[in-house]
């Protein structure tokens, strides 16, 4: 008996090869999307770790001084007196290449003898001959540098040639002792020299910018810290790595969110496939039960077939997932602006955990998904099992249960989101909300189409179309949910990006109000106040703002300080989100209060009225938070302080940039030329038109979200394909009913139209449902995920385009799904359809 029962099941599979194919494809897609997304995510994560390790190497700590750097004697002391062997000095400064249109270069001075062993051998270049001399040349030849290939090419020099740089208004000839291969253009903008050369060229004899360290334990850390003179701090490299991590966090968050989404979609695809398989053989189950098959035998049959489909699907899915993963990894790598990241990410890794997840979903998931409907079919009296109406009643009950469960999940997600504060909790809440909302989809669609059907009483064809959704909920429910999830993701992410972009542009408009900005393009580069005075006195210039950006080393990383010489008329360029605008101005102006950006406030849990401490040159000082302002410029936050107060407290009169406001009626072009003339010859100082900064910023913003958009499309596509398969299987299941309609007198075109319309209504229902769900998702991304990841606030902008796109996509998927069944139904002779089970 058991053999026959199993055989009956197996035959049912082979009998309908297209349906079998669709079932296998459904599982395969589910597995593939989970594995592919996971691989992309993990590869990106690994790459990020690696690129961070490439930066800090095994560096655990760094020593920074004040704006003037630190004395070299400290380094010698660390090595010879404290026995800190794992240490390397760095001195960086800006020079300008006169021969390349005043192109700024950062001259990086290192000690090539101790640097490499410290940082590990990962960066050993595979260069051939000639380096034997490079080290000696760097050490012995005053003014010798290594140039990256791109810079050398730009200047038209080869190894052995010379370049002339300007530094501090003076000209220096540097010898190019080697040209470094730099296919990734990572090194562009840099020239490398021995620390002696760097000190001499930059005129910073006796100084270092920082010291990189590997400190093995807390003991060593304390010993080093105790040995540091005042004003010099030891910073854990992890703090910097954290800062970098945050910089790329948007990226990883995207991937995580999409991984999650992929899991939901994958779950639905697998569940849809398996429950559909059982639903299709309900009648057979009833008959088998009637002739005496036990429940266990029925379960065995269903599970063995589920396992077979799961196995086949998983096998294809894993392969497909790997292909998908490779594609995604490539995509992620290519769209990344950071090429070493790119390189690292291309070292694509197959994580056993991802594969395990895929297998679990594909095989175990398939079997688990098949159990409840199989159990149900095996439990009801055989006659009821053969009865379609009983099945649909079950499905409606199921939909109500699912909706109830979905409501609970929604509620739970809401509670998690409200009650928690962490990012992981936010994602958990998001997951619960997506799941909950999608579980509401079947019932909502059924109700919607039933209500619509009521609008057309006595129109059997229209009702046939509309009632199709509700009346065959056993087969359509899960497909609707899957489609709704996918479409809502498409809508949600699009709305999120729209909102972010809109807010970003408004912020740019508001905060960039000067006509021109003059800034140093180099890390830590500065200009003298003399330049500011010169520019202030230029004809056509009404007034200028003086700005100084300084990364203040602190025990847990850096505090980005922005010292701004602001006048009252410039105050309006700040979007004060918390605190009284007027009171904040007064406190800011007094130097006792500071403004902090939203990310800073969020990360440090600061409110208006609270205080924060900064280590100034005069010792630690506390400042009152006078206001919190919107700033998308820095993901880790910035502290805005009145420049005169900064000058006094940090003994630093230099400037990082100037905002230039023109007087009314002055000729822009002429002033621009005068400004260019004023900065000519200054290392790395550039005059930039505000409009071009805005455009550039928006371009950078868009670049950052290219990946998001592509992933969004991918999620949509996978869901699209999956749902097309599900709906197709659904239509193929109706051949008998279609044959009756043909007998009654439906033409082929009418029949095709009917199938298409039914499928389209399904798509429409899912699409309509996914609009509120997508908006909910967008709302959560904007106000919860984004806020918790960065602390940014933004306006919620809804434009009709993404919504229309989403609904259109849903209907498109459904219509596409109808093509093959319609074609097949039309060309089947009715007599054949009538014989079908």
């Amino acid at each position, binding site marked *: 008996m058991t053999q026959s029962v199993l055989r009956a099941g197996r035959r049912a599979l082979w009998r309908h090869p297209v349906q079998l194919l669709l079932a296998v494809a459904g599982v395969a897609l589910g597995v593939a999307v989970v594995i592919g997304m996971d691989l992309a995510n993990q590869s990106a994560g690994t790459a990020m770790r690696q690129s961070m390790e490439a930066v800090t190497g095994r560096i655990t700590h760094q020593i920074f001084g004040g704006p003037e750097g630190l004395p*070299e004697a400290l380094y010698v002391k660390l090595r*010879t007196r404290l026995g800190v062997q794992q240490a390397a000095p*760095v001195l960086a400064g800006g020079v300008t290449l006169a021969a390349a249109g005043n192109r700024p270069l950062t001259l990086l001075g290192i000690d090539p*003898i101790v*640097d490499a*062993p410290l940082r590990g051998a990962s960066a050993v*270049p595979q260069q051939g001959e000639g380096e034997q001399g490079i*080290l000696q040349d760097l050490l012995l030849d005053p003014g010798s540098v290594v140039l990256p290939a791109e810079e050398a090419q730009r200047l038209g020099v080869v190894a052995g040639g010379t370049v002339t740089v300007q530094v501090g208004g003076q000209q220096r000839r540097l010898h190019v002792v080697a040209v470094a291969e730099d296919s990734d253009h990572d*090194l562009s903008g840099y020239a490398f020299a021995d620390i002696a050369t760097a000190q001499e060229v930059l005129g910073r004899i006796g100084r270092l910018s920082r010291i990189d360290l590997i400190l093995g334990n807390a003991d060593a850390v304390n010993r080093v810290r105790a040995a540091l003179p005042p004003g010099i701090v030891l910073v854990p490299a992890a703090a910097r790595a954290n800062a970098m991590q945050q910089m790329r966090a948007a990226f990883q968050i995207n991937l995580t969110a999409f991984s999650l989404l992929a899991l939901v979609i994958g779950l639905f695809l697998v569940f849809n496939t398996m429950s559909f398989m059982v639903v299709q053989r309900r009648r057979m189950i009833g008959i088998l039960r009637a002739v005496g098959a036990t429940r266990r035998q029925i379960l065995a049959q269903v599970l063995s077939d589920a396992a077979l489909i799961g196995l086949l699907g998983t096998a294809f899915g894993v392969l497909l997932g790997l292909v998908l993963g490779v594609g995604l990894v490539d995509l992620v790598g290519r769209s990344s602006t950071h090429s070493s990241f790119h390189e690292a990410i291309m070292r694509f890794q197959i994580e056993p955990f991802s594969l395990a997840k895929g297998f679990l979903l594909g095989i175990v998931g398939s079997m688990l998904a098949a159990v409840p409907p199989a159990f149900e079919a095996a439990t009801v009296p055989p006659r009821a099992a053969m009865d379609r109406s009983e099945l649909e009643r079950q499905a409606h009950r199921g939909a109500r249960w699912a909706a109830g469960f979905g409501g609970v999940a929604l509620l739970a997600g809401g509670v998690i989101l409200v009650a928690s504060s962490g990012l992981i909790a936010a994602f958990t809440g998001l997951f619960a909300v997506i799941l909950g909302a999608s579980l509401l989809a079947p019932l909502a669609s059924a109700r919607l189409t039933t209500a619509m059907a009521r609008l057309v009483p006595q129109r059997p064809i229209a009702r046939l179309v509309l009632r199709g959704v509700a009346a065959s909920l056993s087969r359509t429910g899960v497909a609707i949910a899957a489609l709704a999830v996918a479409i809502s993701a498409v809508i949600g992410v699009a709305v999120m990006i729209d909102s972010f972009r809109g807010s970003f542009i408004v912020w740019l408009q508001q905060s960039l109000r000067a006509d021109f900005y003059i800034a140093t393009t180099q890390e830590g580069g500065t200009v003298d106040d003399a330049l500011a005075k010169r520019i202030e006195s230029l004809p056509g210039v009404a007034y200028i703002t003086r700005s100084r950006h300084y990364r203040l080393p602190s025990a847990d990383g850096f505090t980005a300080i922005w010292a701004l010489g602001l006048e009252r008329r410039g105050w309006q360029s700040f979007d004060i989100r918390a605190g009284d605008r007027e009171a904040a101005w007064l406190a800011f102006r007094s130097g006792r209060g500071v403004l902090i950006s939203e990310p800073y406030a969020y990360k440090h849990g600061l409110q208006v009225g609270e205080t924060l401490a900064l280590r100034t040159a005069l010792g630690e000082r506390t400042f009152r938070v006078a206001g919190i302002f919107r700033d998308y410029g820095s993901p880790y936050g910035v502290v805005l302080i009145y420049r005169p107060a900064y000058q006094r407290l940090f003994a630093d009169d230099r400037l990082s940039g100037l905002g230039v406001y023109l007087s009314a009626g002055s000729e822009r072009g002429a002033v621009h030329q005068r400004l260019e003339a004023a900065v000519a010859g200054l290392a790395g100082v550039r005059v930039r038109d505000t409009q071009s900064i805005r455009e550039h910023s928006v371009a950078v913003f868009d670049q950052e979200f290219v990946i998001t958009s592509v992933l969004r499309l991918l999620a949509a596509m996978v869901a699209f394909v999956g749902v097309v398969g599900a709906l197709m299987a659904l239509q193929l299941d109706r051949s008998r009913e279609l044959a009756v309609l043909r007998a009654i007198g439906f033409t082929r075109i009418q029949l095709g139209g009917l199938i298409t319309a039914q499928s389209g209504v399904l798509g429409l229902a899912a699409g309509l449902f996914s609009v509120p769900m997508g908006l909910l998702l967008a709302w959560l991304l904007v106000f919860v995920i984004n806020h918790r990841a960065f602390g940014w606030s933004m306006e919620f902008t809804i434009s009709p385009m993404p919504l229309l796109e989403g609904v259109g996509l849903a209907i498109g998927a459904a219509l596409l799904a109808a093509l093959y069944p319609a074609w097949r139904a039309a060309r089947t002779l009715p007599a054949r359809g009538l014989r079908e089970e």
Partner: protein
Amino acid sequence: MRYLLAALALAVLVGIGWWLIADTADPDQQSVTKAAAFRAPEDDDMAGYAKVTGPRPMQFPEDHGAHPDYRIEWWYFTGNLATAQGRPFGFELTFFRFAMAPSMPPRASDWATRQMWVANFAVSDIKPERFRFFKRSQRGAVGLAGAQTHPVRVWLDDWQVRAQSVDSLFPARLQAEQEGVGIDLHLSSAKPLVLQGDAGYSRKSADPGNASYYYSYTRLQAQGTLSLEGESYPVSGTAWMDREWSSSVLAADQAGWDWLSLQLDDGRDLMLYRLRRRDGSADPHSAGTVIGKRGESQHLTAADFTLTPLRYWRSEATGVSYPVTWRVQVPSQHLEFDVEARMPNQELDLRVRYWEGAVSVVGENISGRGYLELTGYGSEDQPGAPADG
């Protein structure tokens, strides 16, 4: 982001430095034997360096300091130690100075220098036969590495030997530590300084320019602590200091040398070196010194002694075979005994690769301790040594 790129770029560049002075390099590709490192660079590069051509008066403590115009120079400390319970150890701490150029224009930055310093530190844990060795490189500038007099101090980072008084080298304190392996020894000299060769002029080949200035302290009493894997052991024993500077040691036809420093239990000390030619034969400029109980020394020429390799040990790490057991015969001194490595694996697989290790003297009526140095093995100029001991 800029910062990130900068650091990345930096990492790539320092790779160049790494490639040059990497500690453990691929043996097939990058190892250079010690002998090769001490051979004169192809003649024209020698121009401008001070040359050792004959005896010169030595002056101390000045000559304990650096001689920057010579191309190479070293301060060599080796010794056999033991705990009170008799657990035996060997140690080696050497400071090398290399001039990268004969001269340098004046420069503003103190970092600028033509002096490169390298130090090797090794501890032989003889009982479990464990050998730990380390290498450091540093420029001879800004106080990172160097040699000074009044008082004498030779250092690289925090590895150092420092005289305890202003005008004499000994007593001195010898310190080195890395990765939990360390020595901190108080050294005092039981015998006066010995000028090797002809009043310190030690000729290495027929060309009088292939020579060095060479003096030694052959019997130093060592006392202090040795640390290993978190344990600190009070130790005592005897050590040896070798000092040499030169611009060119080996001639083109010489492959390397086998060098022995032995402290015999009858109170005599013996230094012997055999310069190996590329054809495997001993060069007639091989030489030695025997130092009596009270420090009186007697020069030995190649004809006065024979060194015969008895057994070889093949390094698993590098595949090189080293003669680690020798028959030593000095008929004029009525000395005949075997010298055996106290443990076979004391190979320093560095970019400049050599074997340097603690040895025992095994004879009928004589015993002793010492150090053996084997250079120039495993390079293409090595004569065919037996594949296995």
